[in-house]
Every structure is written in C-alpha cells, then in structure tokens.
C-alpha cells in the first residue's frame, strides 16, 4: 500500500489521524481499552470534568429513539482532583493525544479547572463544553449566550498555552455567529455539534420518559443537521472545525470532512461498537488509497456547491 498521510492539524495540535473519540462516550479511556487499541486513535476527549465531582441525574437517563438516542446523564463525573490522581496515570500508558473536556456552572469554574489541568503534560488541549443541555445551571444557557461564549473563550485562553476548542450548541439560530466569537476571542477551534434538545413521553402515563424531562439527541438521526451546521461555519468563519454528529462509519467521516471538518469525533457509535474507531481508520486508509488521496486533510472543505 502506498503511504497515505492521515494526519491532520487543529491549530497547533497535530493528530495522527482525524478520528477522535467524543466526550462522554469513552469515559477516561480504561473501559474502552479492553476493546480498542487507543494508540491507533487520533485522540480521546474525556468525559466532561467539573471542579467538584457531580453525581448526575437520577434514572431514567437514556431512551432510544428512531436512529438515535436521548441522554440526560447530567455531567456525572469524578471531578478534576480525582481525574488527576486516579485517571491520568492510566492514560499516561498510551501514546494518544488527550483532550480534556471541561464543563462548569460559572466562568470562574471554567477558569479554575483550566488553571489546574493545564500543568498536566498528558493533556494536549482543552475542549470547553458550553453546551450541555442536561444540567440546570450553566450548560445550555452559556451555549445560547453569545457574550458568555466569548467571555469563556477569552478567560480560558488567558490561563493556558494549550489549544482551546469550544464545543458549540446546535440549539441556536446561527451557529456560525458563535464560531465567529470564538475566533475573535482567540479560540483555536470549534467542535460542532453537541446534542440537540429533545424529549419523549410515555403515552400511557403521560409522563416524560427521562427524569430530566429533556435530553440530548445523538446518533445517525442528527447527522444531516450536524453536517449543515459544519457547512455553515465553514462558509462563514475561518476556524478549524471538529465535526460531530451521528458518525457511524468511514463514509460519514468523509462526508463531514467534505463539509468542512478538519477532524471528527465518534460518539454514540462507541456504545454500539467500542472498536468502531479503529475500523473506521483502517477503512479511511483504504478509501484514500482507492481514490488516490495522498493527504486526507485535502478533503476538508472540498465540497463543490
């Protein structure tokens, strides 16, 4: 096989391939490592971390929907301190770029988390979750508030030299305006998209199926929406995009790259096949060989409209 260059760059972050594992679908790596060779993956995005541990929402947290799922986990996580003490040592055994996802209830908490985590060498970049739909405070409110997103970008950038990626909410009218603010405030990239707000009712009890009432929709059902959001950002803002939303196979990855993504994240598919990322990377290499694509990064934004 000829030498295919699968590497991509997100600002100053160099990745061996464009396939990342999305926050909340890979935990902190240890469970996934039973199924997948983490050293082959482009990168791992940790479960959202907050300053203090969070218990998360009561059950029911998950509902399957047509070609998708609703989740309302509520950012259950071990907190920054336990993460550094108990989770990082395992991740140090692997040669895989670690992107640390941070969720917070206030701008100060984002800053505090970043300040603590930036000293850890294993962490190569930060992904800032301004768009979790499933917690009462923070989360979605930030994701909907363009000034807050700008402020968070500015403040987090000011306390780290590592690349800062802002994970954007699709639950807004014009996602490109948010991407523009991220760029203006010095953000290195955007991840698009987080989940779409949805709900589901039990028709007999008339109660919502999720304890949190609403949840975040993910899976193949949201792929067309995610692609349109990526395209919107690509056309209007000059910032690297990490595409996310219902990617199940290599064809979906290629589609996201054509629409403007420099890299992608696999989310819900990890729950169904925890080895899917490795399979996709192999398939992408075959695709590039078959179509004489020397560098996969050529695909980014190669749409013909």
């Amino acid at each position, binding site marked *: 096989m000829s030498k295919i260059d699968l590497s991509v760059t997100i600002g100053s972050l160099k990745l061996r391939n464009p396939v990342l594992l999305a926050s909340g679908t890979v*935990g902190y790596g240890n469970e996934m490592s039973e*199924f997948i060779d983490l050293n082959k993956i482009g990168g791992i995005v940790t479960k959202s971390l907050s300053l203090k541990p969070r218990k998360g929402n009561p059950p029911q*947290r*998950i509902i*399957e929907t047509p*070609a998708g*799922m609703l989740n309302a986990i509520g950012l259950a996580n071990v907190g920054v301190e336990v993460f550094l003490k108990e989770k990082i040592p395992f991740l140090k055994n692997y040669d895989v770029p670690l992107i640390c996802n941070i969720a917070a209830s206030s701008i100060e908490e984002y800053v505090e988390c970043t300040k603590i985590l930036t000293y850890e060498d294993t962490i190569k970049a930060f992904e800032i979750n301004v768009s979790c739909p499933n917690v009462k405070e923070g989360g979605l409110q930030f994701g909907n508030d363009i000034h807050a997103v700008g402020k968070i970008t500015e403040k987090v950038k000011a306390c780290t030299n590592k690349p800062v990626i802002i994970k954007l909410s699709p639950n807004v009218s014009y996602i490109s305006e948010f991407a523009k603010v991220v760029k203006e405030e010095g953000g290195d990239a955007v991840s698009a998209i987080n989940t779409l707000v949805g709900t589901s009712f039990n028709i007999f009890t008339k109660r919502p199926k999720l304890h949190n009432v609403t949840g975040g929709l993910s899976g193949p059902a949201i792929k067309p929406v995610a692609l349109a959001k990526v395209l919107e950002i690509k056309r209007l803002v000059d910032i690297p995009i990490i595409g996310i939303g219902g990617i199940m196979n290599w064809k979906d990855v290629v589609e996201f790259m054509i629409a403007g993504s420099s890299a992608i994240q696999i989310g*819900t598919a990890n*729950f169904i096949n925890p*080895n899917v990322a490795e399979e996709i990377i192999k398939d992408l290499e075959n695709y590039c060989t078959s179509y004489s694509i020397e560098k996969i990064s050529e695909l980014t934004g190669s749409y013909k409209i």
Partner: protein
Amino acid sequence: MFIVKSLVEKTIELENNILVIKVYSPEISSEIKPGQFLNIRVSETYSPLLRRPFSVCDVEGDFIFLMFNVLGEGTKILAQKRKGETIDILGPLGHGFNLDDDYQTAVIVAGGLGAAPFPYFVKKLPNDKRIISFVGGKTNNEVITYGLKNILISTDDGSLGFKGTVIDLLNENLEILNKGKIKIFSCGPNAMLKAIKEFSIKNNFECEVSIESAMACGFGICQGCPVESTSNKEKYSLVCKDGPVFNVRDIVL
C-alpha cells in the same frame, strides 16, 4: 469481554410466547457466570440502533441460551433468526450471583421473565446446596418455570398455584425458610424486588437481586444505568458494571 458474531442454532418456543434462542458461542460459554449478561445487537441497521441487554439463561458445552419475549423491534428480529444467521454479542458483562457463600439452601424468587437467569444458576449451584424456587406471575400466562427445580407457584388471580403475590407465598412458607441457613436470589419486576428487599430485611435473610435498567454501552462508559447506592450518597452505582446483581441491602429500589 469480547465482541463476537455468534451463530444461531435454533429457537425453542416455550409456553406463553416465551422464546429461548440457542446460540453457538464458545467464547461466551466458557467465560460466563450465572447472573452476568450480554449486550446484543440483532441487526446492522439503525433500527434498533443500540444493543439490548440479555441475561444468559443457560449454557450447554459451546452453546448459550437466551430467554426473551417479543416486545419491541429488537426482540421481533431476534425471534425471526434462523439457524446459520448471526447475532453480535458483547460480553460477558457485569457481576453475577455469588453462589459460594455460607448457606444451605438457595431460595430462588422469580417474577415473570425474571426467571431467565436461573436455569444456568441451578446448573452451577454447588452440589451441597439445596434449591427451592418460588415463581410468581399476575396470571398463569406469566409463570415461567423453565429449568427450575423444586418449584412453588403463585399467581395474583389464582389461575395457577397459590393465589396471591410471590411474597405472600414466601410468608406462607416461612417455617421451611427458617430451617437452616438460606440465601435468596431474586429477579423480576421492580415492585416485586422492592417487596423482596423488605421481606429479606424483616426476616434477616441474605438476599441478592438482579436488576434491570435501560443502558447503551453495557460496560460503564455511557453512564446511562444509575442506581442509588445505600452506602455512598455522593455517587450512583452503575447497573452494568457494579451489578446487575447486587446485595439487596446495597441499593435503593
């Protein structure tokens, strides 16, 4: 843990629309313990999208058996699988029953399809332990006794066996239960498990329950299957990783 595509051998129809599917899966059959589960994908399409958890009903050599009834899209597809077709299995998952504790009699309490994990349990129970099985259902259509031993039956409407709940039936037999040291092993609807918890605590019986939950991954990453723990109020336990079998005193039902 493995992800394996396993060949369907045959599907056996029990009474009352309950099916048992026999699958050739030496990887799983050699590893699985009673009470552990598998997360199964029945089709490559996106309908259904996620895997579904199934407890292993029985093991015979290289074959495993899964018990189910047709409820939704996934079980409908599973019911139509013919010899030579495959199912995609992720497992074995979770913690099973602790069979080796200090007790003389295993008291199985099963409600409806909660009988599913017990045929293999019966097979693996150490020889020096006795078994009594209490099986309950709302009506006789819900009573499943497949693979069980030494069976007492209750139905809410009295259409089969004792008239009343399975807890009523346990109370009727307290004298037998109080002879020697027993341990209760239970699986069934949540309301029944709640009552079993109360019954076990009141009578000072050891008790393990296998509980159900919606889940996506089955191995601890999606965090979709929390259950409240009695010892740690700051953190949920996960049904998939910390269970599905719990000491009944460790969880809030």
